């Protein structure tokens, strides 16, 4: 991409990690955005919060571990990773069960964050 334009793009991850390809494909898109030098953020909402649970063992269902992709985000300078507080409550997930990559945000602060974004993308 020859253009030097840089936009704030938030990818909204709302799919559970396994059982479908949406979670993986959204992360692929986010990594592509980072590779193209955009300001990428990730926001985990709804069932998407399940992607952040530590000690996933998807090999038992013959799937690749999605959390490994999440750990790659830091290499691409994706530092803004947020998880929706209410969704965590809804899924009965406590902070200590989460991978150490995401910051917990409530609905109001997510709303404020999204208003500053140029593009919000979900699948």
């Amino acid at each position, binding site marked *: 991409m020859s*253009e030097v334009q*840089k936009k704030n793009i938030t990818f909204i991850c709302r799919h559970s990690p396994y059982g479908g390809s*949406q979670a993986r494909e959204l992360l*692929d*898109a986010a990594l592509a955005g980072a590779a193209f030098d955009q300001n990428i953020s990730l926001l985990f909402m709804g069932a998407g919060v399940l992607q952040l649970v530590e000690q996933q063992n998807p090999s038992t269902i013959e799937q690749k571990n999605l959390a490994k992709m999440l750990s790659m985000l830091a290499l691409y300078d994706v530092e803004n990773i947020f998880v929706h507080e209410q969704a965590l409550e809804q899924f009965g997930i406590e902070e200590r069960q989460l991978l150490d990559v995401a910051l917990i945000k409530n609905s109001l602060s997510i709303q404020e964050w999204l208003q500053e974004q140029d593009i919000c993308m*979900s*699948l």
Partner: protein
Amino acid sequence: MNYLINVTAPPSSQTSLSALRFCQALLKKGHNISRVFFYGDGVYNANSLLSPPTDENNMEQLWRDFGGNEQVELVVCIAAAVRRGLLNEEEAKRYNKPASNIQAPFIVSGLGQMIEGAVLADRSLTFS
């Protein structure tokens, strides 16, 4: 206004037709569509072997006609496509497969096209 349209809904979903109708409405209103990007299960819209009953919509043909008549770029994500068995001639050869099922004006390219399209567009919409 300049639009990027992402389609992640398969042809079996009403959403694919909604996306196409939205694209047609955009052009009618004088807007510009820089690109339609097919991602996820949306890549199935590019399957040239779709053969629905003649009294039902053939989404591949509708999209292909739209892209050809309106000169709108139809880009299929290559990674999402090949893992779902959607290959143009070049990819079919590369993977040593007996047939290809993506035809022009659909083109296959990478996710960078979606990012670039979104960055250059005034609006990005996803039909999922």
